[in-house]
């Protein structure tokens, strides 16, 4: 057994962490949050120049990594540095470009020349109605898509979107250019920073990337690994900041960390974060062990992120008292991000149900 991330990945981590510390500091974050795009395009370009995005993809596709642990460590640094930007969007869209063997398009994305995002979940209307799954019609090189997708990461800045749609033969993934006819985009900011949008397609021209829905499942599973590692890192930041505060904030003449009422709760927080870290490792370690096992550990990780994430975010704010409620303190931004990480790939309950379902399938097979 080996729990080290290895030398190459450590170098990647160091490079990214230095870059983000330099380019994505607190002032840069404020500016990014104010901007229409919701992220710093120069930071993104610089990161692409360093080749960081290549770590998310395999060599055949023009990257230099692509394993679940490569993805994990990159998203860990994203969690720690808290830059906004289309990281997850790039991963999800890129994994489908990779699956389709479209290394030219993916190469542009890795190089930062093109921004890609991924549109999968149907849009939800004002009355709560869920749009029907988008549909694709056509054949060969000529397809058009119609439908509505919701909360598509950084849609307003994207040049291309990988869209999932019903082909009549299962779910397929298609490439759509945001500038094409029949594509409309409604952009908006997110509560934890960054931006997303609603995508409406009306006979929009599209290129089929893959008609194999297993490739879509695999892309989503890599998003789960990324989210679990990002969340674990955000939790560790919140833990460290809260510990520091417990040691330095004095009330009643002593550091508040001397109150047993807080000590035991902080011990629980620390314990749960170790569990979340293990869940993230499990998700990565089981990624290549067949879809059923991959998804079961993925569901376990997302359940853990939802459950532990809430605890850590709430306790971090609570133990800071009033100051934990302020915009000025980075802590509140980490807390918001962590909470929203419990939403991006589906929530705790959804993944608990999925875990049970996958377990039942396992048992049935065994029987």
């Amino acid at each position: 057994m080996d729990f080290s991330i290895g030398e190459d990945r450590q170098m990647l981590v160091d490079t990214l962490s230095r870059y983000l510390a330099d380019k994505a500091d607190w002032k840069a974050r404020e500016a990014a949050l104010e901007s229409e795009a919701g992220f710093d395009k120069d930071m993104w370009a610089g990161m692409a120049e360093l080749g960081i995005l290549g770590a998310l993809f395999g060599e055949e596709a023009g990257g230099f990594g692509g394993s679940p642990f490569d993805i994990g460590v990159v998203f860990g640094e994203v969690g720690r540095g808290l830059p906004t930007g289309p990281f997850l969007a790039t991963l999800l869209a890129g994994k489908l470009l990779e699956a389709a063997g479209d290394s030219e398009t993916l190469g542009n994305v890795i190089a930062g020349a093109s921004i890609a995002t991924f549109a999968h979940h149907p849009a939800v209307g004002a009355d709560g109605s869920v749009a029907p799954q988008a549909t694709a019609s056509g054949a060969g090189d000529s397809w058009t898509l119609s439908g509505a997708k919701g909360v598509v990461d950084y849609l307003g800045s994207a040049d291309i979107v990988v869209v999932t749609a019903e082909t009549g033969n299962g779910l397929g993934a298609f490439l759509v250019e945001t500038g094409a006819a029949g594509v409309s985009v409604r952009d908006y900011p997110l509560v934890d920073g960054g931006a997303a949008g609603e995508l409406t397609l009306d006979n929009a021209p599209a290129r089929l990337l893959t008609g194999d829905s297993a490739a879509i499942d695999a892309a989503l599973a890599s998003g789960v690994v990324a989210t679990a590692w990002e969340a674990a890192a955000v939790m560790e930041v919140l833990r460290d900041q809260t510990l520091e505060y417990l040691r330095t904030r004095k009330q009643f003449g002593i550091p508040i960390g001397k109150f047993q009422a807080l000590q035991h709760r902080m011990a629980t927080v620390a314990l749960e974060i170790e569990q979340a870290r293990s869940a993230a490792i499990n998700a990565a370690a089981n990624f290549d062990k067949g879809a059923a096992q991959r998804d079961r550990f993925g569901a376990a990780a997302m359940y853990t992120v939802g459950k532990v994430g809430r605890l850590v975010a709430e306790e971090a704010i609570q133990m800071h008292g009033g100051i934990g409620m302020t915009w000025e303190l980075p802590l509140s931004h980490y807390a918001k991000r962590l909470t929203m990480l419990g939403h991006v790939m589906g929530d705790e309950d959804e993944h608990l149900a999925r875990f049970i379902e996958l377990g039942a399938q396992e048992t049935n097979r065994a029987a």
Partner: protein
Amino acid sequence: MNLDFTPEDEAFREEVRTFLKEKLPKRLSDKVRTGQHLTKADMEEWHAILNERGWLANHWPVEWGGTGWSVMQRFIFETETAIFHAPRIVPFGLSMLAPVLIKYGTEEQCRHYLPRILDGTDWWCQGYSEPGAGSDLASLKTQAVREGDHYIVNGQKTWTTLGQHADWIFCLVRTSSEGKRQEGISFLLIDMKSPGIEVRPIKLLDGDYEVNEVFFTDVKVPVTNLVGEENQGWTYAKYLLTYERTNIAGVGASMELLDRLKDVARTTMRGGKPLAEDPFYAARLAKLEIDLENMKTTNLRVLDAAGAGHAPVAESSMLKIRGTEIRQEINDLMRRAAGRYAQPFVAEALEEGFNGEPVGPEWANPVASQYFNNRKLSIFGGSNEVQREIITKAVLGL
């Protein structure tokens, strides 16, 4: 035992409902219902409507313009106004300062200040907390030094809610550093227009501005603005903190929010069926409802005891803890119900007159920011940890 309200109470409830149907402007209840921000003018408008009916200061003695209502009537009023989405009564002048003035102030102070609170001339804010004095309030440092007919005040208050609107601030200030820390504190009324006062807004995590820092540099305050005796302010402050206890659990507001949450659970689809039929979500909702139902009766028991003259110090700590936990749980379930749509946040949609299209379900836009903002409920008004300390010591004797 009989948990029914008396026929008189039921008649009173009808009277309140009729009033709300007739007098509560739809513009205001719509804003409250949809989570839009209330402006100062909105809050003043609602105060004026209540004042016209004589119901604004419903817990003051009749001689000062109060209603003479029983604690049960006040509970009914608070519950019904919440259910009808009336704006919350801003508590600082009405519920916090006024009871202190009535009990400890001079006749002259009451005559001067109370009518101005009622008719909205003065907007008050509460200056207790300081950067170094939160839970440990008695360590406050803002200093008032007597010079002839004035105090000279220097120091800083913080977390001052709605201080940006305020004409006056009631402050705890240090007038002596001898003896026990609690014994050198005085209760002072300070005009916010005094030279030497600076208000700086604090941006909260949801991006909104509701609290402030207030700085005092050589601020001259007439000694006639002292409430009660010098160095006795701690006693008055404690009285104030335990006074407004009927509404501390916010049961009415939670009942209303729970109804809304159930609607949301019925109309929100997840995995092809309504959330209300999702076993995990349904369990969360059910547990919340059970807790709230229990809380309602706990609250009524406390009120009943208070009506019989028992001062419910420790019980009010219990109501505060569980009441705020229930509110926060409701916010959490709203956030969960929004699913991916918890993320979009169009801040402009919280302002009146926004006519853009909602993103996702029409109720979803404010829910995540409300969830984050309401983390404050377990921090202010004496944090829930401090409340647990009170229970441990005062009730359990540990």
